[in-house]
């Protein structure tokens, strides 16, 4: 397979089609429009597939709900303000145990915010986002190749665990072009899940619902969801490390912030500072155990995000006082530069007294 040059949004579209996505429902919002346009061009004419530009993000996620009921792989995408609107539908998908893939090419907030890249939807993505006791799996790519790979993975995870999966990118990842390789082909024959609603032919009729007038029944549903979440936590945590082995200071960053931090870390190493990085790839489930393990090796932590400190809370929860985690963030769509982060890393390194420490 040859590499092709693509922007991140289009790469998600191509990866989704190859993963067997049959239905895409979208609504225009910057900076994810290339994905919607890619799906119009490449999915709408495909046999048995559906593309609809919906009247709102709310409708789009509910169309995903409908398509998922019918047992096919379905996806929607948006950016921060639109993702807020989708939360109602995501809660229903989680409650009804329906697989779906939701892409958030996030931008600056709150409110209408800016169209520039930001990571300030971390809380919304990792805490469930909508009403009720539930979680969604959240994947955080940091390159166009990883966008493609994780899109494929998102559909598999959604089906395996019967849950909505969110891909949390940002405006930079969606817009930038990089070489990307797709190592899998779309399945020839697209089939529906065997628990689909497609008419009670040769089987008893089925009901997909969440409402119950008995709180104890709902409590049991929540318990069953959380037993599944426990299984996800045990099996699906993913992260990447960079020069972390001998590092005294570990930068924790995801997505675009991690990309920029990587350059800064390389330069800090040239200054003789022993700095490395832990990059969570799954934001939920969060690599709590990995952070604990790093902390047990007497490492200190610096969390860098493009927000006011959201993942920071998960890092501190993981550390539980075992080590110090300081924070640096830019927000509102401001993107830090590698030299800025290099200064921040060096300052933190010296302030923590790591320079002379054995």
């Amino acid at each position, binding site marked *: 397979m040859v590499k092709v040059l693509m922007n991140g949004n289009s790469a998600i579209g191509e990866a989704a089609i190859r993963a067997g996505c049959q239905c895409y429902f979208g609504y225009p919002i910057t900076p994810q429009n290339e994905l919607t346009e890619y799906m119009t061009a490449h999915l709408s004419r495909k046999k048995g597939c*559906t593309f*609809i530009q919906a009247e709102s993000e*709310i409708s789009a996620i509910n*169309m995903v*709900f409908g398509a998922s009921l019918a047992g096919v792989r379905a996806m929607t995408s948006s950016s921060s303000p639109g993702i807020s609107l989708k939360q109602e539908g995501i809660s229903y998908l989680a409650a009804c145990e329906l697989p779906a893939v939701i892409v958030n090419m996030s931008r600056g907030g709150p409110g209408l915010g800016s169209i520039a890249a930001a990571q300030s939807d971390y809380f919304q993505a990792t805490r469930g986002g909508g009403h009720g006791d539930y979680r969604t799996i959240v994947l955080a790519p940091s390159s166009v190749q990883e966008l493609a790979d994780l899109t494929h993975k998102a559909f598999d995870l959604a089906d395996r665990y019967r849950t909505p999966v969110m891909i949390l990118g940002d405006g930079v990842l969606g817009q930038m072009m990089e070489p990307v390789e797709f190592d899998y082909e779309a399945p020839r024959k697209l089939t529906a899940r065997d628990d689909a609603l497609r008419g*009670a032919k040769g089987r008893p*009729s089925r009901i997909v619902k969440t409402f119950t007038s008995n709180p104890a029944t709902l409590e049991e549903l929540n318990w069953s969801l959380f037993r599944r979440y426990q299984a996800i936590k045990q099996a699906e945590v993913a992260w990447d490390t960079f020069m972390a082995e001998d590092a005294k200071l570990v930068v924790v960053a995801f997505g675009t912030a991690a990309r920029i931090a990587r350059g800064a870390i390389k330069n800090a190493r040239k200054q003789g500072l022993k700095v490395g990085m832990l990059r969570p790839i799954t934001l939920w489930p969060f690599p709590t155990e990995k952070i604990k393990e790093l902390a047990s090796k007497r490492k200190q932590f610096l969390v860098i995000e493009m927000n006011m400190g959201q993942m920071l809370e998960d890092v501190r929860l993981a550390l539980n006082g075992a080590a110090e985690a300081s924070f640096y963030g830019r927000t509102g769509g401001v993107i830090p530069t590698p030299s800025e982060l290099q200064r921040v890393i060096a300052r933190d390194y010296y302030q923590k007294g790591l320079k002379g420490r054995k």
Partner: protein
Amino acid sequence: MKKIYTRPASLKRTPFHYCPGCGHSVVHRLICEIIDEMGLQDKAIGIPPPGCAVFAYNYFDVDMAESAHGRGAAVATGLKRAAPETVVFTYQGDGDLAAIGTAETIHAANRGENITAIFINNAVYGMTGGQMAPTTLSGQQTTTTPYGRDDRLEGYPVKMSEILALVKGSAYIERVAANSPANIRKAKKAIRKAFQTQIDGLGFSLVEILSPCPTNWKMSPIESCKWIDNVMAGEFPLGVILDRTGKKDAG
């Protein structure tokens, strides 16, 4: 002896939870009779709404899926597009279809989605305890219009069927009532025609059913049925509102 009246096969043997005199149970039965008569029990998928009819899935013996409030038309769109061989109907109240779900309904109709909406208009929010609905009549008292609906402050009764008739993707829209044997027979005919419109792939179909809610109207069932004829049908005239099917009568 010949059996001339029995429970439809697609109506489960579950006692209805609806109040005495409520129109839901009548309409449920009509839909089930049509599903049986048209042989749709293995093809039909119903989308009940939040509200009194949320438990519709306990009564219809066909595939059923709960929708979020107002989103029935969007859920039905995704479902029908992904499974075009099915017959998809939403079952929605006036608050669901004519207030919170206005956008979903109008745009599904405008795309000519091959789905059928059964639209129960009882001029109040039932399950929440009788608040003003978009279809509450001018002057009508509800728990949120205790002095009667004042058009200038609370707006006018919304006529969704007439609005939807202006939308080009709509194929068949009729308003009927579930308040007398004659009207119930007409309602059944309309539901049949709406399902046939979907099966023929002609576009969006909707049957609005004026339906009694004695509990929240604070009337007896008999008074409620009379009120539909004498008052409600004055604001919401019965009859075919749009027919682009090119068929005089599907019954």
